[in-house]
């Protein structure tokens, strides 16, 4: 069973996780874990604000946040029954090379994540097949 990352990569879509905090925190996470996504750091929340995300949408990210996301992706996003907020998502945007936003979801509360089938369908439709 392919995990979600394989499907995203297979569709030729670039996966970039953006967090608040410091590059040092991100680097130490990357050293400790093998992560299949690119990791960008928005310490001053400029990208968060440009994306229209409220201040509460992001706090300092922690290793736990990425661990949750990675486990969610490994499980093919099949953690719908798990207590808490395994995804730790603030928002998701799928943007194509024409600059068109093909999918977006802003989480309003804990556990508020995009329906996976919708997200994956948008990814596959917008991605370039290899």
């Amino acid at each position, binding site marked *: 069973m392919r995990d979600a990352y394989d499907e995203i990569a297979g569709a030729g879509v*670039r996966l*970039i996780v953006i967090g608040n905090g410091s590059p040092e925190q991100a680097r130490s996470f990357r050293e400790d874990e093998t992560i299949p996504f690119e990791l960008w750091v928005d310490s001053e929340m*400029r990208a968060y604000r440009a994306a229209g995300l409220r201040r509460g949408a992001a*706090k300092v990210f922690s290793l736990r946040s990425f661990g949750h996301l990675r486990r969610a992706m490994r499980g093919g996003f099949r953690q719908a029954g798990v207590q808490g907020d395994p995804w730790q998502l603030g928002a998701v*945007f799928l943007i194509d*090379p024409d*600059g068109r936003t093909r999918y977006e979801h802003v989480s309003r509360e804990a556990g508020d994540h995009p329906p996976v089938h919708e997200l994956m369908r948008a990814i596959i439709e917008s991605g370039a097949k290899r």
Partner: protein
Amino acid sequence: MTKTADALASIEIVDDGGTPVVVGDAWKERSALLVFIRHFG
């Protein structure tokens, strides 16, 4: 470009190596999925 993509395109942040990256470059050649992480507690 749509409003959000337009606003994001010129924002410059850094990657985990500390190298500056322009957010709009993410989707220059192929579609990009941007996942903004949040953290509770």
